[in-house]
């Protein structure tokens, strides 16, 4: 018996949708647990331990708490914007997962413009934060919104310039192709591709820093600088409204770490040849996610102007220099 190809495709899509949503939800929930555990151990505490073994049920309890809380709409807010903002932040982060290849054949949609699609969706995130902050009619939130917008504008430039460099090296915007080109030993990974440009490790660091800024993570968490702006853009959000922002933050971190893995660390390519590719992909990705958490609990927050200075005066010139150097070297060799 042969199944109709369109039916197979339908089953595949449904399976991916369910799978991705479970993946995102579990990630969001358990990265919070990991974050709290890591933070605890960095600070010589134990972290969550009461709910379930090693506190493993803590995220479930937290989620239940958030979900059962009353959704207060504060007086004087712009109700439409206030309600739409968390959705507008969450959906693009989910959409980003569509084109991410987790393994050789593990991708929901292998688009030729996969990279472009991810960046297109990722920039909607800012709009969501802006809407939420503006709609809240809270002065702290509005200050935060102004910061988020200029921060994202500033950091998307070096990030995209680095990505253009990678696209030039690979000659493709298809994430699957970008990984396939890095196969065959870790010295083929883009981060070590010194034949394309000796500045490749620097480009990786620029990408990583920009990713921290784009996902509003410490030390660049200007959106939610809790000691200055109370909770920034989320100040007025109760219960699950805040919960969704929170989930989206972790989803964005996973997207950012996945992109860094694909673009620089050879995606599912195994450096030693054992284990299936997807395990290597997750290993690399979670190593980056761990680094993000580690940074958060080690460094104090930068100020807004030094953040912009860093982008415009350091990251953008270096990334452009890398772009020029790469194009010259590609032409020569």
């Amino acid at each position, binding site marked *: 018996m042969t199944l109709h190809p369109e039916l197979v495709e339908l089953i595949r899509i449904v399976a991916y949708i369910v799978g991705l949503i479970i993946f995102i939800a579990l990630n969001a929930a358990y990265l919070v647990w990991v974050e709290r555990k890591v*933070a605890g151990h960095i600070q*010589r505490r134990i972290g969550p331990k009461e709910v379930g073994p090693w506190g493993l049920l803590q995220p479930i309890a937290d989620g239940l708490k958030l979900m059962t809380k009353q959704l207060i709409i504060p007086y004087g807010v712009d109700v439409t914007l206030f309600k739409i903002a968390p959705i507008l932040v969450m959906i693009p982060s989910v959409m980003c997962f569509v084109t991410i290849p987790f393994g050789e054949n593990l991708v929901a949609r292998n688009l030729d413009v996969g990279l472009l699609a991810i960046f297109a969706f990722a920039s909607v995130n800012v709009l969501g934060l802006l809407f939420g902050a503006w709609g809240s009619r809270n002065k702290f939130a509005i200050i935060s919104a102004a910061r988020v917008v200029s921060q994202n504008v500033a950091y998307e430039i070096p990030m995209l310039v680095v990505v253009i460099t990678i696209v030039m090296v690979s000659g493709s915007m298809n994430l699957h192709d970008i990984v396939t080109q890095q196969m065959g030993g870790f010295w083929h990974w883009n981060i070590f591709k010194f034949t394309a440009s000796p500045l490749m490790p620097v480009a990786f660091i620029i990408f990583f820093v920009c990713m921290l800024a784009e996902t509003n993570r*410490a030390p660049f968490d200007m959106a939610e600088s809790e000691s200055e702006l109370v909770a920034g853009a989320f100040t007025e959000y109760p219960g699950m409204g805040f919960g969704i922002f929170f989930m989206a933050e972790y989803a964005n971190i996973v997207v950012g770490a996945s992109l860094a893995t694909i673009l620089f660390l050879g995606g599912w390519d195994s450096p030693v040849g054992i284990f299936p590719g997807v395990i290597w992909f997750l290993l690399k990705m979670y190593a980056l996610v761990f680094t993000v958490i580690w940074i958060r609990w080690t460094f104090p927050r*930068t100020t807004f102007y030094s953040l912009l200075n860093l982008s415009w005066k350091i990251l953008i010139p270096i990334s452009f220099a890398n772009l020029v150097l790469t194009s010259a070297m590609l032409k020569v060799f």
Partner: protein
Amino acid sequence: MSVHATSHIGETFVLNLGPQHPATHGVLRIKLTMDGEYIAQAEPVLGYSHRMHEKMAENRSWHQFLPNTARMDYLHALAFNLAYVCLVERMTGIEAPERAQYIRVITTELNRIASHLVWFGAFVLDLGGFSPLLYAFDDREYILDLLENVTGSRLTYCYFRFGGVYNDIDEDFVPGVKDFIKRMRSRIPMYHSLVTKNIILVKRLKEIGPIPAEMCRKYGATGPVARGAGINFDVRKHEPYSLYSAFDFDVPVYPEGDSMARYMVRMDEILESLRIIEQAVNRLPDGSVMADKVPKSIKPPKGDCYQAVETARGSFGIRAVSDGTSTPYRMKLRSPTYSNLSLFAEASQGMLLPDALALLGSLDLVIPEIDR
């Protein structure tokens, strides 16, 4: 690098920082007139936890006011105890035995270190670094345990008495203090390598929030704020009280006047306090901890008296007027943070909000002490 507002489009808005805000460490409200993220004008609004300690003093006996002193500066309560006890002893002519004086110095300095540790953690927390707080509290816990064993309480101490201290120290205290000195000396370099040398922290503190010596004089700022502006003034050194003239210690002074200078002054003061404690512990004499024949009812002779001490936040002074009865006629408390905060309005003008909060944190505010 400090950034100042250059373009004014004349549109400002009022931002209420507090009374409930994570950066004000209590019920302090600062009414900010903001030009974008720049502060056009700042106006601290005080009085949310005003308890009329000065008036209370007029309604109770000299003895009964003793616990009140610890309720002002909850982080360095023993220094406030000490100020009051020294004042009354001077007025009445009671002399505390030497052992009691030594114990007073040791416990007050331990308390000063605890206060600086809380400040250190809270200050870095203001700057967005969460982890140092827990490390600082870990060290502070040692001090609190030591003091709890001796004084019976962990925060609002009432340990000193007119003519001595309430209780003699136990046999575990001196070894415990010696252990703590050793531990703390090894921790300070760790704090410096983890926090002080962090490039982000340096960028947030160096040349940010300048408070020149002139401004300190204008507003009467004392303590680490003044010493961070190059004013070499420490009551312990310049108007010695209790036994401080008997110890060898330095007054850390940094002339830069920025937030970093105030930070470094406090970090160095921890080490200086350790030096004082070490000398005091090594020379601790035997004997009684309470003077003989302290009258049950204290009635200082007519007249007035002023006693200043150096607390963790600056010079704290009490001026008491006695009319010869068992209650004070008038008691005026001069608290250091009140003066230190009053310069915030001028110092924060034209600053960015995050820098102004770094400046506010570097003043080391304890709100109940401001409001009294």
